[in-house]
């Protein structure tokens, strides 16, 4: 039997074996969330159940809507002052933990990222309402910093005690007309994961922030990157590369970003989307309202970076720009190839699993591919079907109660600011030439047949996967890190990057090759057994007795 067939038999068997341990109802659900990949003609892949409630008592990797809204999307912005309205924990746990980096324009420019302000609700407010305290907190924030903008984030109890963060925002904005104050209804119980919070964040940023200022940044070719959060300095590396090509990055949502860039973000000619899951809503809405086309890019992986740069340059269609882009790629690739070849020789054929995020489990396969490593299983924490199967399935996604409680905005053309960036004919021509817009092919279409795709992986399944496949490295988050490493397998965190990075762009690719090389060849995992443990007589009573 050749390898692929072997794996095929394995995966089927493995899946049913894993499911037998669940009670019938749970098994029925998990069966639809665990899929064996198969890419057919027209990029047809099997249907997966995603963005569905985690069953109580099953240990999930997922967080809450507040985490997605405040922690992920708005967190990396440095000069929107953020106030968590709720009891202390939620705000405390989201206090600069994601290691988003930022670079204020001048040493005196505001940066509130290390500042965690909370209304720290107490019992009296839970009983009598917390709006008064929230207003006082806003007064204090204004007195202290006089920020350009203030975001208020609702946590679970807030909705239930009847506090209206939007009403408070309106009232306080009337009091301080030069400050943009807005609230987010991102109570943690809304939606099935952080994903709901992304949507809440997108909506508010779209209605209350983008479009307030029509001043563009100087530059001929201007674009935004949506869904890049500057973990480990990724956005810095991307900024470096696009600048070298001669392209103006107007605004990143939201790594290394500021308020001014947000409010004028509609002045660009192109939106590119990195993390599709967290921010595709904004790209869609900006296209309808302002006429800005968007497509998906990926700056994770040296080849993927080159491909994305070429696509951006081709969009602008300027010959000199395209030439300069090629030059940059060529120059950067020299160093990349050198390290890649060296590392590949050692890492070729090693196996990896990725269970993380709403795009990273897909993007990082590029880097492993470049190193000759094989992804044998992957899955997202909080993605939806379109992130697995591609946007073509969007019309078929069922709207359940959990998605229904997140508002879908009705968006229309802006009578003044709408401007088609390219004529209809131009767009048509580009499309017939194979240029794709509004595209995301999804993770599964780019993975091998028979690979395991598992949505919302839990602890028990992780344990089974390790037992069965013993991969050389697993990529996930901090909650999984230590339980995996206790079993002798290195785990690379792809949320915080283990406080390393950057991993995006060309320099990032080199960093990642080296990091994975270090991990899979670390000596320490070979030291877990002491020499005397190899002789059975000595280890006879070593196992746990109960």
């Amino acid at each position, binding site marked *: 039997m050749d390898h692929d067939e072997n794996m095929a038999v394995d995966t089927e068997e493995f899946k049913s074996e894993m499911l037998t341990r669940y009670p019938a109802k749970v098994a029925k659900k998990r069966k639809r969330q665990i899929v064996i990949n198969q890419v057919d003609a027209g990029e047809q892949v099997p249907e997966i159940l995603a963005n569905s409630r985690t069953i*109580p008592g099953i240990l999930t990797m997922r967080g809450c809507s507040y985490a997605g809204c405040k922690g992920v999307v708005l967190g990396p912005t440095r000069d929107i002052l953020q106030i968590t309205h709720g009891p202390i924990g939620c705000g405390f746990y989201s206090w600069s933990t994601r290691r988003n980096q930022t670079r204020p324009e001048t040493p005196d420019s505001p940066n509130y990222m290390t500042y965690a302000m909370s209304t720290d*609700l107490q019992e009296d407010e839970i009983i009598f309402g917390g709006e008064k305290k929230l207003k006082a*907190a806003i007064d*204090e924030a204004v007195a202290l910093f006089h920020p350009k903008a203030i975001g208020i984030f609702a946590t679970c109890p807030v909705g239930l005690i009847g506090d209206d963060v939007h009403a408070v925002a309106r009232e306080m904005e009337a009091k301080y007309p030069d400050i943009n104050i807005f609230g987010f209804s991102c109570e943690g*119980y809304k939606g099935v994961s952080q994903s709901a919070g992304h949507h809440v964040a997108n909506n508010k940023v779209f209605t209350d922030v983008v479009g307030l200022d029509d001043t563009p940044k100087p530059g001929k070719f201007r674009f935004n990157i949506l869904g890049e959060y500057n973990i480990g300095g990724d956005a810095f590396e991307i900024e470096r590369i696009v600048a070298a090509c001669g392209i103006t990055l107007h605004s990143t949502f939201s790594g290394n970003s500021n308020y001014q860039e947000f409010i004028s973000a509609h002045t660009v000619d192109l939106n590119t989307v990195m993390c599709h899951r967290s921010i595709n809503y904004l790209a869609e809405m900006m296209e309808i309202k302002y006429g800005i086309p968007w497509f998906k890019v990926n700056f994770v992986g040296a080849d993927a970076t080159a491909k994305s740069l070429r696509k951006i340059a081709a969009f602008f269609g300027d010959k000199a720009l395209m030439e300069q882009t090629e030059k940059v790629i060529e120059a950067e690739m020299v160093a990349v190839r050198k390290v890649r070849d060296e590392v590949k020789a050692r890492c070729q054929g090693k196996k990896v699993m990725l269970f993380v995020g709403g795009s990273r489990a897909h993007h990082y396969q590029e880097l492993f591919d470049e190193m000759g490593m094989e992804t044998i299983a992957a899955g997202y924490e909080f993605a939806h079907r379109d992130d697995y199967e591609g946007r073509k399935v969007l019309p078929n996604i069922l709207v359940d109660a959990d998605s229904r409680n997140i508002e879908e905005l009705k968006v229309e053309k802006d009578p003044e600011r709408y401007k088609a960036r390219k004529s209809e004919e131009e767009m048509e021509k580009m499309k017939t030439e194979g240029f794709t817009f509004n595209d995301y092919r999804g993770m599964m279409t780019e993975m091998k047949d028979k690979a395991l795709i598992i949505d919302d992986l839990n602890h028990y399944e992780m344990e089974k996967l390790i037992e069965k496949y013993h991969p050389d490295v697993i990529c996930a988050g901090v909650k999984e890190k230590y339980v995996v490493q206790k079993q002798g397998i290195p785990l690379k965190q792809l949320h915080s990057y283990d406080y390393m990075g950057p991993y995006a762009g060309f320099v990032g690719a080199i960093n990642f090759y080296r990091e994975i090389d270090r991990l899979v060849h670390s000596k320490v995992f070979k030291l877990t057994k002491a020499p005397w443990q190899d002789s059975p007589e000595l280890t006879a009573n070593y196992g746990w007795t109960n």
Partner: protein
Amino acid sequence: MIAEAIKTKSPSRSYTSTRNACKLCAPFGACIVFRGISGCIPLIHGSQGCSTYIRRYGISHFREPIDIASSNFTESTAIFGGRDNLELALSNVTRQYKPEAIGVTSTCLSETIGENVPMYIAQYEKDRSEREKNGGSKEPALFYASTPSYRGTHMDGFHEAIYSVVSKLAGTSVASENVEEPKHLNLISGFVSSEDLRELHKILSSFEMPYTLLPDYSESLDGGSWEEYQKLPKGGTPLESIRRMSSAVGTITLGESIPREHDASAWLESNFGVKAARVPMPIGIENTDAFFSQLTEFTGRPISQKWMDVRGRLIDAYIDGHKYCFGKKAIVYGEEDFVLAICSFLSELGIEPVLVATGAVSDSFKSRILSILKKNRSEPLVMDDADFVTMLEKAKDLSPDFVMGSSKGFYLAKNLEIPLIRCGFPIHDRMGGHRILHLGYRGTLNLFDLVCNTLMQIKQSSSKIGYTYI
């Protein structure tokens, strides 16, 4: 002034909002306790976000797996109640983990909607005893700690969880009552490091009397690598040991700030007549002496020579290091009992804490600190209900030499351009935070070296000549 518009709990509070908090939420503390009980898994009754945040936070300090389940509230659960979710979660956790116990905590959400969790649990237990009678397998013990975070901090959750476990289990041992039990002792440790718990084991064993150390995450939150997969890391206070706490010769509780209604030792005393003694956290010579004396009193056994020797070395070190320490100024913050003990230790060295803060609201904090620091040359600024931004604002005029406390004081120290001596919880920007030894004579010696060496380093690097003998 804006702040006056709102009733604030503490007079030392000048701001309504909390800016860079110096406290965590209550379920966090409860989960740590539950992980310190053998085979026990915590389950947070509320939305999954709380449990995810709390797991992640604990892991960043301990660098160990910390599994915490959740009953995963949805929007409709939040409206119609979470009983079904809780039952489902309990049965799923039981099936997956086969735990000896499940420690349920509430959240702000379940408390806000007024969930009657004790009633749910009682009913669940009743139903399952039916199931067990009908041949089902033995199911885990269930504890419930009510932990609304709008009332108190992680320490309230910590104490409440201990209380919930003791009040549920103590006195329920089924071991035959006729057999004479050996004399034994209870020790309730407070929120200390894994290394501290190991030290407490050493100290207790030296008194040659069986004991119950509760909680005990010395292994469960600081274990080795695994030969075989462990659903729940081993270690933790055995349930049987907790059942027997009712017949102990006494209970020593480390820390004096536990509110009476959460005090497990008071409960044991009033229900079973087990003598209760509260002592300060044994950091510094005086506090450690008090702890050892209490141990002698309860066990009737002398302090072993081994500890006397360490004590001797500690005194010797104090004498050697005094010239570096005397008159230096420190900022200390953290949990009440921890801060009280650190202040007592620093003042033994001649160091003056100039700013002393805790995130908890406490009426007695200030007077206790002042009585410990009565020899200070100038009165220290003492704040309860404190946060880090306020601390920074106040600290600027106090010209402190160093900051002592958790990683959360990093910005404070950075802004003041003075060193941060990391101890306590959380420590997520250094290795081995959970392996820092604070307690006993040996812990004090360890802290002494840390403090003294930091001061020596300042002296050395600020000297133009760069002495190598100082």
